[in-house]
């Protein structure tokens, strides 16, 4: 005795249910629910009230724990349904109000409520009960039974979409569950597709577009046949009819394509309204429906019947290509994708509206696409716009053909747009196309980032296997810095990573030495390294633009000139914009002369640089910290030494003290000399020196696949073109297994640092280096002995101090450096892949968050 949905005959013993179902078992205690559920469902799919009672009270029969148990059960069910997991509620569920809550839960998550009724004879239940350890009083079972009987009639009305019943235990034994995919789920169709926007009866344009897309259209008499290019399939986004000159022909063509498997079609609001009219329901005949009805008048009734069947069979939206593509007439929110309900169908047809009406009498639409954060690409139509624009992985391709615009198709996965211009204006738009909300909101406004996008706790990168974790307090700190000090997020496509020093040297007088830097890579199997001179300036990220339009066109920043220069913490480098722009203009000219714009096929370039002098950015720091310490130490030590000399001359046994203070005096002199070396006066532009060392990215590319030699040589070509303001970085390629080369590089370092240089950075020759254990440090710095006075204080070189200072740990710094390196490059990759702004910004935000971590600042 089985019954199926709508009385349709199904194979005996097969209970078909949709994959996204909430299955409610209904039956008295002892009716065999749990045994049945165990047999046909996964253990984790079944939420049983007994189990939750035991969980909160250690006793599955403790009725006093029921309300707590159900509270938990509902919570778990909600989490599962949210994740679209089939869920089975194993409880008696004989009372309507209990079931009502479950149906509401299913509806909330757009899952389908299914009832399995165990309508066993009372005697069966008593029998089972008798075998149990903990027996229920028989009046309880009797009452449950009565409640079940009362329930039976109303299940459909309560909202269960599938109802199956069993009356005997034997019957239950033979039931087999068949899970069916929803109609919307076409994940196994992987395309390629040609997705076509709102046609609205523009038949001639449709034929032209299909032809352009490579479809062969044969239109003879009443028969249309369309042959797609091999392997391709068309998708119609609905609104086939109304307003335009030939809706019947459009319907005929699309119906034939869908029937032959050459196309998929989702319904539009106009199509649905037409269906209602054809079904004889009362609708307002306007907005172009009157045109279609007049055209259909000439068609035979049998064909009208076919149209009705076709329209009735259309499914709200489709999820395609392994979940990577979603198509719907008016768009689809992430949480609705691949599910089915009335709400979802309405969303697919009309989008999200506020319920308000605008000045043109049209509904005010909320732009769901603006807050869309899903990973699937959503292609939709419905709202006519002049040009399709990607926004958060969504694309509206309704370019208003019927209003005299054009008919547009998106080739997927190529993401190419193909359009055919309208042959005439068939209808006057109710609202001017240009003034549609999607356009009047400037592009800029649509690029807003949600605070939840940046307050995420993990970011997956391409470079690291595991996601980068961001702690709450780190993102809180970053939120503050980002909001108060950083430049426009649209510029902030990259933030550089921190850099670890080499392991601490044991050589007398040194804290850092090239030996350990080479050792780091040699021990990890890297043979070729590059040593680059470390300039004593400030880190600067430069985005250089080929022309002034690029800032607007590619970065969506208005009035930005030649690009931007920002610091490693995302702040504008120069307070004076004219200096910034003058340097950028010089750089732009140098890149032009070097011929790199064309060679790299780009309008912009992102460069990692050092900008000198240090005093340009750190003037305050130098004056308020370094010069201060210098002034105080000079004065105090000169006085002390002179008094000690006097005492020594008088033979008071202060010689040791004197020599110690003379040494301090010497240290103080070196300290002053060190900071003076890095601060020079800037009188004109040529007193600035910009030294790029990574050509990070250009249009469509991040140069992590090129080795550092390529970076140095390419940048060298730019620097040669303007030696006034640009500075090439000196470098040396070293084979770390060749002792002569290592020795030569060490000598080079000594010479540089002894004449006041900051030191050098040692990098693996390839931009990204890894060994079996994972990613290696992209660079380690090796700083000069004199320079380190500015970090460790004037007297750090005294051996007694060095001994103690050598006890430093690099572990945390190195771990940060790797994570920030991965995040920084991830941001660039997302930017060149044209991912949504919030996805790019999350990476820079992540770097900033990690940078809030307290680390020994001397490293």
């Amino acid at each position, binding site marked *: 005795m089985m019954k199926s949905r709508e009385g349709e005959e199904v194979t005996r013993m097969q209970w078909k249910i949709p994959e996204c179902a909430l299955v409610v078992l209904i039956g008295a205690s002892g009716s065999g629910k749990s045994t049945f559920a165990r047999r046909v469902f996964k253990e984790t799919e079944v939420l049983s009230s007994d189990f939750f009672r035991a969980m909160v009270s250690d006793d599955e029969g403790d009725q006093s724990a029921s309300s707590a148990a159900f509270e938990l059960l509902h919570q778990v069910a909600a989490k599962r349904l949210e994740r679209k997991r089939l869920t089975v509620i194993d409880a008696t569920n004989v009372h309507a109000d209990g079931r009502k809550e479950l149906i509401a839960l299913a509806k909330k998550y757009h899952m389908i409520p299914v009832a399995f009724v165990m309508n066993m004879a009372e005697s069966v239940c008593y029998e089972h009960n008798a075998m149990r350890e903990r027996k229920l009083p028989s009046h309880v079972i009797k009452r449950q039974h009565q409640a079940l009987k009362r329930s039976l009639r109303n299940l459909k009305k309560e909202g269960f979409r599938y109802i199956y019943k069993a009356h005997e235990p034997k019957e239950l034994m033979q039931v087999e569950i068949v899970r069916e995919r929803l109609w919307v789920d076409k994940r196994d169709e992987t395309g390629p597709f040609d997705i076509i926007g709102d046609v609205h009866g523009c038949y001639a344009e449709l034929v032209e577009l299909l032809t352009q897309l490579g479809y062969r259209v044969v239109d003879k008499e009443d028969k249309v046949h369309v042959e797609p290019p091999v392997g391709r399939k068309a998708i119609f986004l609905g609104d086939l009819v109304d307003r335009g000159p030939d809706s019947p022909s459009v319907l005929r063509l699309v119906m034939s394509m869908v029937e032959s498997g050459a196309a998929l079609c989702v319904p539009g609001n106009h199509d649905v309204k037409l269906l209602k009219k054809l079904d004889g329901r009362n609708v307002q005949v306007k907005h172009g429906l009157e045109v279609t009805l007049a055209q259909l008048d000439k068609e035979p009734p049998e064909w009208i019947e076919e149209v009705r069947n076709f329209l009735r069979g259309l499914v709200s939206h489709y999820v395609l290509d392994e979940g990577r593509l979603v198509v719907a007439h008016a768009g689809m929110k992430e949480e609705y994708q691949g599910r089915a309900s009335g709400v979802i169908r309405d969303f697919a047809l009309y989008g999200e509206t506020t319920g308000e009406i605008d000045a043109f009498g049209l509904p005010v639409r909320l732009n769901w696409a603006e807050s869309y954060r899903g990973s699937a690409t959503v292609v939709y139509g419905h709202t006519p716009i002049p040009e399709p624009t990607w926004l958060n992985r969504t694309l509206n391709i309704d370019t208003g053909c019927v209003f005299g615009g054009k008919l547009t198709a998106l080739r997927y996965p190529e993401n190419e747009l193909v359009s055919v211009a309208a042959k005439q204006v068939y209808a006057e738009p109710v609202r001017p196309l240009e003034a549609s909300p999607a356009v009047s909101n400037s592009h800029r406004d649509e690029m807003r980032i*949600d605070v939840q996008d940046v307050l995420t706790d993990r970011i997956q990168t391409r470079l690291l296997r595991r996601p980068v974790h961001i702690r709450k307090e780190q993102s809180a700190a970053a939120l503050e810095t980002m909001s108060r000090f950083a430049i426009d997020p649209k510029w902030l496509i990259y933030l550089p990573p921190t850099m670890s020093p080499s392991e601490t040297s044991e050589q007398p007088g040194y804290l850092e030495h090239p030996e350990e830097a080479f050792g780091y890579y040699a021990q990890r199997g890297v043979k070729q390294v590059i040593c680059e001179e470390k300039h004593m300036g400030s880190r600067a990220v430069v985005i250089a633009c080929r022309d002034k339009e690029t800032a607007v066109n590619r970065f969506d920043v208005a009035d930005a000139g030649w690009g931007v220069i920002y610091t490693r913490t995302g702040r504008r480098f120069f307070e004076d914009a004219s200096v910034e722009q003058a340097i950028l203009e010089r750089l732009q000219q140098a890149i032009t002369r070097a011929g790199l714009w064309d060679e790299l096929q780009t309008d912009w370039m992102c460069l990692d640089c050092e900008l000198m002098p240090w005093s340009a950015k750190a003037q305050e720091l130098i004056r308020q910290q370094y010069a*201060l310490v210098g002034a105080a130490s000079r004065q105090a030590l000169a006085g002390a030494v002179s008094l000690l000399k006097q005492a020594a001359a008088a033979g008071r046994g202060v010689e040791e003290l004197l020599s110690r203070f003379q040494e301090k005096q010497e240290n103080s002199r070196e300290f002053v000399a060190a900071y003076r070396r890095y601060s020079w006066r800037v009188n004109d532009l040529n007193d600035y020196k910009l030294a790029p060392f990574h050509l990070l990215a250009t249009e469509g590319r991040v140069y992590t696949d090129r080795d550092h030699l390529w970076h140095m040589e390419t940048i060298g070509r730019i620097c040669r073109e303007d030696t006034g303001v640009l500075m090439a970085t000196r470098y040396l390629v070293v084979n770390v297994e060749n002792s002569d080369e290592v020795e030569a590089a060490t000598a080079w370092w000594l010479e540089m640092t002894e004449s006041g240089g900051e030191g050098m950075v040692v990098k693996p020759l390839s931009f990204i280096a890894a060994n079996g254990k994972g990613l290696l440090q992209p660079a380690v710095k090796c700083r000069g002995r004199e320079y380190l006075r500015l970090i460790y204080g004037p007297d750090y070189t005294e051996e007694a101090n060095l001994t103690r200072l050598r006890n430093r740990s690099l572990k945390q710094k190195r771990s940060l450096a790797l994570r920030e390196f991965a995040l920084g490059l991830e941001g660039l990759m997302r930017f060149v892949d044209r991912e949504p702004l919030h996805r790019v910004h999350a990476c820079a935000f992540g770097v900033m968050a990690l940078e809030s971590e307290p680390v020994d600042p001397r490293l």
Partner: protein
Amino acid sequence: MYLEITYQREPATDLGYLLHKHPERVHTFALSYGHAHVFYPEVSETRCTAVLLMELDPVKLVRGRGPHGSGFALDQYVNDRPYVASSFFSVALSQVYSSALAGRSSERPELVEQAVPLEARLPVLSASGGCERVRRLFAPLGYEVEVAPLPLDEAYPEWGNSPYVQLTLRGTVRLKDLLSHLYVLIPAIDHEKHYWVGEDEVAKLLRHGEEWLPQHPEREWITMRYLKYQRRLADQALAKWSESSALEEGGEEQVEKPQRLNDIRLQTVAQLLRESGASRILDLGCGEGKLLRLLASERRFAKLAGMDVSIEALRRARERLPEEVELFQGSLLYRDERLQGFEAVSLVEVIEHIEPDRLPLLEQLVFGELGPATVIVTTPNREYNDLFEGLEEGKFRHHDHRFEWTRAQFAEWAEPLAKRNGYTVSFHPVGPLDEAVGAPTQLALFRKEIEA
């Protein structure tokens, strides 16, 4: 850092007895943060000089702080502490010269109580108040004061002078007085204590300042600085000396205006919010929650919430506000669902902290997306800046201000904005009104136009 004390009365070698340090030897003392040495570069019957030389251990010094507490990350490692007269030095002085400071001398007990000709030299004193301040501190104590500023870096004369001065004091005083003057005034001038200032600091101040501080014309300044502006401690100390000299209620704020501009501003905004009829109020940039505190007790407000970007400000706000007031960290840079559902939004002294090119974002968020019935915005009136003493011309009132507007500029921003977003706007002066330049604060009250 060192202190040079020269004694010029025959027999000058008595200085050794006074200091309890034999002139012919070098005396070294271990301190918790380094060493102190006493030696005599000059010893004769007519003139004797003792030097107390402090040698700080820079590696042990990691808990010391730089002179400006500027947030400079390397403060702990690169700082002036070894070279300037600071609390470190005061402590060294009290330990090494403890008997002299206490006025004890077994050999020359009568000399201890006598005023004698002494000269003291400190090579580097960090005196942010400048030479004049140093003079005002020592001159009333009977010294002939010689103060000379030190240049920051002679290679860069354009950088000007450092905050350091070289100090020489000459006078006929008791040695123990000289030492207690230095003991108290050095850390007061330097203003960077390397240890926590608590109750026992009050006791030290009372002990060492007992005989001279109550009469000192700068006693309040000295007390406040010595106790690091801990009002409660300073009041304790001052109350001990004279009932009448205790400061009136009101704390630092009392130094400013009888009624502070900020209070007037907040009360004005609070009143406008009450009159707006709104019951759900959101204060954007709530800071420490002063406005919300004014509103918190009133029944008419069903929901009060504050957003700020600073976690530290929110932490303090949480302490002063009842639980029902919702507080959260957020930023006007990002779209945020938590901002929905309020009838009135206030932005008190917020917009001037935002880069001008970001103001359209604020407009879109507050007026476009949230669109509450009432929006209140306050910002400084730049024209009034001329009337602020001590504000350099062309400077902003706060270093984080990105702009300060005249009344015309404010209107230029607010009026078209109101029109674009369907609001009416009215402007209100806040604070004492000047005929020519207006009030110090300007306020714009935006009301959403009700659609017909």
